[in-house]
């Protein structure tokens, strides 16, 4: 079975996000007043595997070992069979 996987990576709540702060400031230059800006990174890929459980297990492992740094990041995994 082929699965579509999406990993959404965000900074943990309360972490300083200089990029988001600058987005707020720059939007202000355009005349928009926005608050609570956040940025997330989305990584998408496919995997061929027999079970969805195995895919989930592998993707959690990928997040912990490479895709995220658990010290500063939260992540959300979405797995859908094609």
């Amino acid at each position, binding site marked *: 079975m082929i699965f579509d996987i999406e990993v959404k990576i965000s900074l943990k709540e309360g972490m300083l996000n200089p*990029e988001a702060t*600058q987005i707020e400031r720059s939007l202000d230059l355009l005349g928009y007043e926005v608050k609570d800006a956040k940025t997330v990174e989305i990584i998408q890929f496919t995997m061929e595997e027999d079970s969805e459980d195995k895919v989930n297990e592998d993707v959690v492992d990928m997040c912990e070992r490479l895709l995220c740094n658990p*010290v500063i990041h939260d992540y959300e995994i979405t797995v859908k069979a094609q």
Partner: protein
Amino acid sequence: MKIGVIRFPGTNCDRDVAQAIALAGATPEYIWWNEENLTDFDGIVIPGGFSYGDYLRAGAMASITPVIDGIKVLVKEEKPVLGICNGAQILGEIGLVPGIFITNENPKFNCEWVDLKVSSTRTPFTKAFKKGQKVEIPIAHAEGRFYTENIDLMKDQDQIVLQFKDRNPNGSMEAITGVCDESGLVLAMMPHPERACEEILGSTDGLNFFKGFL
């Protein structure tokens, strides 16, 4: 005294570091990222640059390469390891030193001379200094803001090695810009000592870091 200089795709301070090692009186030798056996080496420098284009996070991709396994073996053998700038980010990603270096508070690439305070002299790289001594070494990074969840433990274990003096240019926690592992043999520092090893460069304060290998 043979000191390995690690090269990843995107490393760009390797030749400056090799020059600094030679000036200090040791013999530098380049090591490519896929070399796993480093047992011939007496110490290692992971130089600065932009390994793997800083993709995902600075140092993330480099932290899972075969040469890192070789470095971990050397650390167990109590050989000294110095990570500079991107090398420091890599050591943070591996978890060989506490904490992580993330995007500066003001998210610009910050390249300037700074005054540092030597906060611990127990590492081989800082043993030639006096505790509290001021040293002048440049920084050059956009992701150098030190962050940790374990600041108290680091203090208890004397793991804060270098701090910005007077002015904190990147928003680092407690102005920290150099940290070591529990043993003190692994030092991760954002400033570039190899750029302060000759009078013509403006300072020779950096040379002592490399003499630490001798």
